[in-house]
């Protein structure tokens, strides 16, 4: 009969108590493993630092909000800035490249990002890894969209389908732009970043549908006012005529998908705003001076994502540390419950120990037996705890994604799980020393009595 089987036999003998102590260890381990996994994965999700653009420029306000909203689609934008500011900064000699972005609409709750075609060629989602197309191609003209992989999966969309852009950043049945229906020309390959959650089109598309909406609202208001004055209702002026202006673009019929034609027309400058700009500087030595010069102005602010995210993690890290500390304490209590269980049952076990000794078990064997029982309970508790944390994270994954944003994915096992398990086992062996020493010292002859 193997030593392991003897240990199992004794654990089986006190099955309920063994399971209870293992459960208390499991709770602590599950908490710590979950918190560690959550911290690691959220840090990963928010450490998208190699985009090829080091600085984000946007409206004045919270720089963290600017970064979170631009990079991770979290929260609301600070506001918009005139296109002129973008053009002025693009002309800055320190700037190597700029990628403008305009937000304000959604498709099924996923943010619409009006941007430049360079987005597909210059933006990096990992170090030196550019955006790839999984299907279709990048947009080539206005009123075409490219969608991220998550948008495609969740909304069951394919290339050739059409989507309706709705006003605002939150999903709503209302607020569909009359002009907002357009075809999907491409689907991006998965990046495991917020890019997967975006709907991409040209900036002009976003401006245009907003301006159209404004024009229509104006016409309706004029008609209502004329009717109130008893005058003849003016004819529908909004006929999508060509406008002369700087921001000319063409809208063609899209295979009958649109109930509205998009003609060339100019959009007044006040409608051509930019929500954020990703900026690549020619050299790191310009970082500070560029940020300073933008921030000193009144039109916009500049922020470095890596700096803002690190500041965020510093704040979150303190809370995380407290949670982690409490969870470690739960583990310690769990492991000490093993000690209590072993120690309190030791007196009633003295006869069993004496029997084993009489059968030829050495003192060291008895010592190891008690230690092994403790380790086995901790091992079962630890493994169950890690399993529970994985199960919990898996079940909460969607909710966490929704609340944290980013693409939060959890691995089935982490290196720290192994360390956690080793730590719990080590601690269980340590606390078992006391009962093991007492068991080691058991007086065989006295505890076998009465023999006759």
């Amino acid at each position: 009969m193997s030593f392991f089987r003897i240990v199992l036999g004794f654990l089986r003998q006190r099955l309920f108590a063994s399971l209870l102590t293992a459960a208390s260890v499991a709770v602590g381990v599950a908490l710590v493993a979950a918190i560690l996994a959550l911290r690691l994965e959220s840090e990963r999700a928010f450490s998208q630092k190699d985009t090829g653009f080091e600085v984000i420029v946007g409206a004045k306000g919270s720089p963290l909000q600017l970064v979170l909203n631009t990079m991770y689609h979290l929260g609301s934008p600070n506001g918009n800035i005139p296109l002129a500011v973008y053009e002025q900064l693009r002309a800055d000699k320190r700037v190597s490249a700029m990628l403008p972005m305009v937000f304000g609409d959604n498709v099924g709750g996923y943010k619409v990002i009006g941007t430049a075609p360079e987005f597909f060629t210059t933006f990096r989602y990992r170090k030196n890894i550019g955006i790839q197309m999984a299907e279709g191609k990048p947009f080539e003209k206005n009123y075409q969209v490219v969608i991220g992989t998550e948008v495609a999966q969740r909304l069951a969309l394919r290339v050739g389908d059409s989507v309706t852009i709705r006003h605002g950043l939150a999903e709503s049945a209302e607020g569909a732009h009359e002009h907002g229906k357009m075809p999907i020309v491409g689907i991006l390959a998965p990046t495991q970043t917020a890019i997967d959650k975006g709907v991409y089109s040209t900036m002009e598309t976003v401006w245009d549908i907003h301006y159209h909406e404004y024009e229509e609202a104006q016409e309706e208001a004029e008609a209502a006012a004329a009717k109130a004055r008893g005058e003849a209702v003016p004819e529908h002026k909004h006929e999508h005529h060509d406008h002369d202006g700087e921001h000319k673009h063409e809208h063609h019929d899209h295979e009958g998908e649109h109930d509205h034609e998009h003609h060339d027309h100019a959009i007044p400058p006040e409608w051509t705003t930019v929500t954020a700009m990703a900026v690549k500087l020619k050299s790191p030595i310009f970082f500070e001076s560029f940020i300073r010069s933008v921030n000193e102005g009144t039109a916009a602010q500049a922020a470095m994502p890596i700096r803002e995210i690190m500041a965020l993690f510093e704040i979150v890290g303190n809370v995380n540390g407290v949670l982690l500390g409490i969870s470690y304490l739960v583990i310690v209590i769990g492991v000490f419950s093993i000690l209590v269980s072993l120690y309190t049952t030791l007196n009633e076990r003295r006869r069993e120990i004496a029997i084993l000794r009489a059968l030829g078990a050495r003192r060291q064997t008895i010592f190891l037996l008690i230690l092994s029982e403790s380790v086995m309970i901790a091992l079962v508790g630890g493994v169950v705890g890690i399993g529970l944390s994985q199960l919990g994270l898996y079940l909460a994954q969607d909710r966490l994604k929704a609340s944290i944003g980013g693409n939060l994915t959890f691995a089935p096992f982490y290196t720290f799980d192994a360390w956690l398990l080793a730590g719990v086992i080590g601690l269980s062996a340590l606390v078992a020393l006391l009962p093991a020493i007492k068991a080691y010292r058991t007086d065989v002859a006295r505890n076998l009595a009465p023999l006759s």
Partner: protein
Amino acid sequence: MPLLEITNLVKRLGRNNAAQNEQQFTLRIPHFALEQGAELVLTGASGSGKTTLLNLICGIIAPDEGSIKLLNTNIVGLTEAARDRFRAGNIGIVYQAFNLLQGFTALENVMLGAAFQKGNVDIPVRSEELLVRLGLKECLRRKPAELSIGQQQRVAVARALISKPALILADEPTASIDEANSATVIEEIRSLAREQGSTLLVVSHDKNIAQMFPATQAIHDFIAP
């Protein structure tokens, strides 16, 4: 050469402490020997030192003086760990209170009898065979609490015999069972011991048991006052 030979053994037990109402008892055995294959019943009144003698022989306690040679090995000179190993390989013990482990099945209890003996193979098979031979075929997977007293004693006998020990010590093996079962258990122990070539030393104050053995010796015959 005898299998077991005790010479000039002295073991002092208890403290001469009147406050604790505990008196000192000294067991002195100038000489005692047991030949290979012998079957001996050792009789004596309660408190005469029979159990102490068995504990000394199996090395659970060490004497203050003298030697105990078993299989030509003076176990008094061994370390405690070596005595444990020696006991595991050469001595089987049957207790009055059976001393079965309650969390283990009958089969596991028997297997435990050889768990600490080195180089033992086919123990599960032999344990099962032994229990079947003792009429416990239906009880292999039962825990001691699910067995009758007689069945428990048979499991204890099987455990003592599983490692084929050179010496079997039985301390009042029938004290907890009825007369009908007593004779059966003693016959089973004797029969199995003979088959294995084991020497048998039984401690009992039961005259009926003593009459079943070819040799009986009172402890007072060889202990010194």
